[in-house]
């Protein structure tokens, strides 16, 4: 199989020997070693080979417990008989308006066109990023020049071969303000002139500021690779390198995909992937009830992006397997740091003290998550620095209120989207904050309307999805742009000079240990004067019929179906 080129590139980057030392000294975990090594261009096979070689020295159980992670649930105990071919996977999902993939804003559309178009990199189920449409990448010591080597022999489904020209074209599309891609905000370290085509299969990126997250960014959902002949509407021109071909796309109703015969990856049987013959996405509306009923009665096999309620309703259904993943997805209690009353840090701290984290987690997510401590970096991230979880402290909140001149209490309005954890979290917060002297008036808005005001309201609950690297959310939401104004995604308008400087330092620090030290400081700043309260990191689930094998929950809710196969129950 040709998935991973078996080249001996053990020392692709000068930092790799040091990384190996760190691993041998037990200072980075196996997961971190893999993540860092592949990030630096070491192929996953070489990294795996290295790990296997020193396996006796470092038993896997010896992972430091600093990183509390959830074990993914066990795969069905039926012994797999090897992949089979054929079968149709039917998925309940919204079918949304989609035109330019770089402009995709909603996850459902991204998950459907992910079957047609692929990415340069791939962040796998363990949150480790490795090359995909790239063969490998190299980065210089200053982490501001990335060389991307495009995989040779990959063909788009219209017969063109993928070359550096296509890659450059895609970068230009992402970086063009007129396209309106959210990649532009993510890649604020890159300008169109910084994308250089070296030869037919090599592209070099010249970054204006060092950034270690480039491979992760290349797997951000709008970063789908389209051919250079792309005209702007993927539903009408569904050309990509992916394993499925678009058959039918009817917005708000259904989307169907059929297997492509000449996909570039081979399966275990030596023939091209994918194993499945067809994929059908059906739009059953926004309500969970019909989706659960359809899953139960066999009309669909999978519910995409299930809510905690859907998980609760389906986890015990016979014939349904639930895979769990721990993520960096969360619900952020965000306070506009530039408007009254939240411009006063004492009041921000008071509200954070009013969060009864365990209660919020239990009420809004059935306890399915890990408690968090108000810094936007999760235990699943390699550079996470462990801190103690602040206790629920209404008396402390009262004292802070009094100090800020609100001894008689403070009345605030909380805008909560009517989706996922929003309502329950708002209600729970209202109750626990009353004891601390903060009277919360909940203003519920439909989730779709919340996004109209998400950067506007003084106090709100914003749903953040999982981002692969610990610095990514910080780079997006807690910094200023080049002119010094809060960046486009900085919903709280909170800009802190010390924080920004440290973050820039973290963005160019390859050493996980060193980066963790910076992270500890960044987390302290966010905890002591930051603009968000983060009660917990949510779990997510992949709920699928047991007859589909090799399915896994991706921490970003991505549908990765290349190697899923169908095994009828009779067999």
């Amino acid at each position, binding site marked *: 199989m040709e998935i991973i080129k078996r080249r001996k590139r053990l020392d692709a980057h000068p930092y790799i020997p040091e990384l190996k030392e760190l691993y041998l000294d037990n200072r980075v975990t196996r997961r971190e070693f893999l993540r860092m090594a592949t990030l630096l261009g070491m192929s996953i096979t070489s990294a795996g080979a290295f790990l296997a070689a020193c396996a006796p020295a470092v038993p896997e159980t010896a992972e430091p417990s600093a990183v509390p992670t959830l074990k993914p649930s066990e795969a069905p105990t039926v012994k797999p008989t090897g992949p089979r071919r054929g079968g149709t996977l*039917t998925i309940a999902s919204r079918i949304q*308006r989609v*035109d*330019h993939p770089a*402009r995709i*804003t*909603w996850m459902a559309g991204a998950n459907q066109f992910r079957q047609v178009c692929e990415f340069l990199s791939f962040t796998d189920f363990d949150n480790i990023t490795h090359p995909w449409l790239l063969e490998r990448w190299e980065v210089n010591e200053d982490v501001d020049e990335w060389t991307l080597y495009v995989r040779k022999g990959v063909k788009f489904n219209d017969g063109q071969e993928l070359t550096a020209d296509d890659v450059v*074209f895609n970068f*230009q*599309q992402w970086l*063009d*303000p*007129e*396209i*309106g891609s*959210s990649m532009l*905000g993510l890649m604020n370290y890159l300008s*169109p002139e910084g994308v250089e085509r070296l030869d037919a299969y090599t592209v070099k990126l010249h970054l204006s500021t060092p950034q270690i997250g480039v491979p992760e960014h290349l797997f951000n959902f709008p970063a789908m690779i389209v051919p*250079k*002949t*792309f*005209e*702007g*509407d993927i539903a*009408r021109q569904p050309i990509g390198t992916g394993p499925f071909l678009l058959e039918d796309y009817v*917005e*708000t*109703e*259904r989307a169907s995909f059929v297997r492509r015969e000449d996909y570039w990856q081979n399966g275990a049987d030596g023939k091209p992937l994918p194993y499945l013959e067809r994929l*059908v996405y*059906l*739009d*059953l*509306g*926004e*309500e969970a*009830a*019909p*989706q*659960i*009923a*359809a899953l*139960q*009665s*066999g*009309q*669909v096999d999978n519910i995409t992006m299930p809510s905690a309620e859907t998980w609760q309703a389906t986890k015990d259904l016979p014939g349904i397997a639930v895979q769990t993943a721990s993520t960096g997805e969360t619900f952020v209690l965000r306070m506009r740091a530039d408007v009254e009353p939240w411009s006063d840090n004492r009041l921000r701290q008071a509200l954070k003290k009013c969060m009864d984290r365990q209660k919020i987690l239990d009420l809004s997510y059935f306890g399915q998550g890990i408690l968090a401590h108000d810094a936007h970096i999760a235990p699943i991230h390699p550079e996470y620095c462990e801190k103690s979880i602040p206790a629920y402290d209404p008396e402390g909140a009262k004292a802070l209120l009094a100090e800020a001149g609100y001894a008689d209490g403070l009345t605030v309005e909380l805008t909560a989207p009517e989706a996922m954890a929003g309502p329950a979290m708002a209600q729970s917060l209202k109750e626990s904050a009353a004891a601390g002297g903060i009277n919360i008036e909940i203003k519920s*808005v*439909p989730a*779709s*309307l919340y*996004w*109209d005001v*998400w950067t506007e309201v003084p106090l709100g609950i914003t749903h953040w999805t999982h981002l692969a690297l610990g610095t990514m959310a910080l780079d997006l939401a807690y910094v200023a742009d080049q002119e010094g104004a809060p960046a*486009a*995604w900085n919903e709280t308008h909170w800009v802190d000079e010390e924080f920004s400087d440290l973050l820039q330092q973290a963005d160019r620090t390859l050493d996980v240990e060193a980066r963790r030290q910076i992270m500890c400081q960044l987390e302290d700043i966010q905890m002591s004067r930051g603009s968000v309260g983060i009660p917990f990191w949510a779990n997510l689930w992949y709920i699928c019929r047991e007859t589909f094998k090799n399915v896994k929950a991706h921490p970003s809710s991505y549908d990765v179906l290349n190697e899923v196969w169908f095994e009828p129950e009779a067999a």
Partner: protein
Amino acid sequence: MSRYIIRRMGFMLLTMFMVSVAVFVISEVAPGDVARHILGQFATPEQVELLRRQMGLEEPLYVRYVDWLVGNDWRLSRLVGKPLRQAEVGGRGEKAWWAVMPDGTLAQWRMKEGELIESWVAPDGTKGEEPFDGWVVDEHGEETFWGVDAANHVVLWKRGTSGAQIGPASAGRAMSESSGSEYFPIRRGLLRGDPGISSRTNRPVGPTLIRRLRNSFILAGIAFTLMMPLALFLGILAGLQEGRLLDRAISLLSLITTSIPTFASGVCLILLFAFWLKVLPGAAVFTGDMAPFQDTKLLILPVLTLSLVEVGYVVRMTRASMVEVMNASYIRTAFLKGLPYGRIVINHALRNAMMAPITVIMLHVNWLVGGIVVVESVFGFPGLGLYMLDSALFKDVNAVEAGALVMVALAVGTQLIADIVYTFLNPRIRYGE
């Protein structure tokens, strides 16, 4: 009679007009911005503003209303200086707007690397693309050109400035859309048979609406034809047996079914038939346009849910009406005259007793088609109600307008039918002068 019908039709048009104005105004003042919704949470204000201009949302409300109602191609063709025509090119089943050249050739333009490219289709079907050189120098000395782009806008392109905005990437529909200085979306207008493009799906409203309406008609039609005879029969039976055991039983049952809201009864039925007995699918999953005909099992639970609540209502209405008539003095007279029971009921009582139920039934036709949004969301049934709900949440004005007008036409139309049926039931009723 015919004058009466004509007058009612006139009222219907007036109602539709008022409703369409109201929907426009309401969606204007309702919170939320459709452009922001399309672009998602991470769009910058400039992108939102550009899309608003491309969608024509920056125009005054009355201009948008008139454009929506009667179209604006006749107005915009003056800007372009050529007639505009809708034509289907490329076989995708969707018509696009083109400018018509004097020789009948259709033309569209787009910006590529700072220059305009003209794509044309000759009357004999041949197609081509070539650089365009028809710039017009305006009073400010700028080279400008009014043309039609590939996304149904009339666009003002300026040479140089448009090119400068383009940047390094040159392809992409968004590019060709956004490289102009002014945009007017071309509309054919509702009165000329085009309800417009849905901003939620970016596809024409018409075909989707027709499909959704058909689905709702199937659901409502089956529910209606099953339920009405049954409900009327039970109601009459109960009314005739007033106070007896049968009446009590029917009344109690109908009270129970009407008082359980559809979202509760729907979920109960799903639990019973789909989860425990496993005999029926629990959701109306449409795998294709023809699904309701291929797999009628899909329809059983939604129809049952819908019928339960309706049956109870009509039964109670019919019973009350029947009881009242049976206690009327002319019925007593009939009994005293010695007429047979059957003749009294059928010839004398029924016709009068039917007046109230007919009104209710006709009111419910409208409710059945558009108002069954609860049942549709419980079962995920792709009907008109769900379509309207989703569109309203998205502020998809064109879709909401079209749906609302269909519902008004249905409401007024069914009332008209009810009025005509009255005259047959009760000859004393006369309409008109």
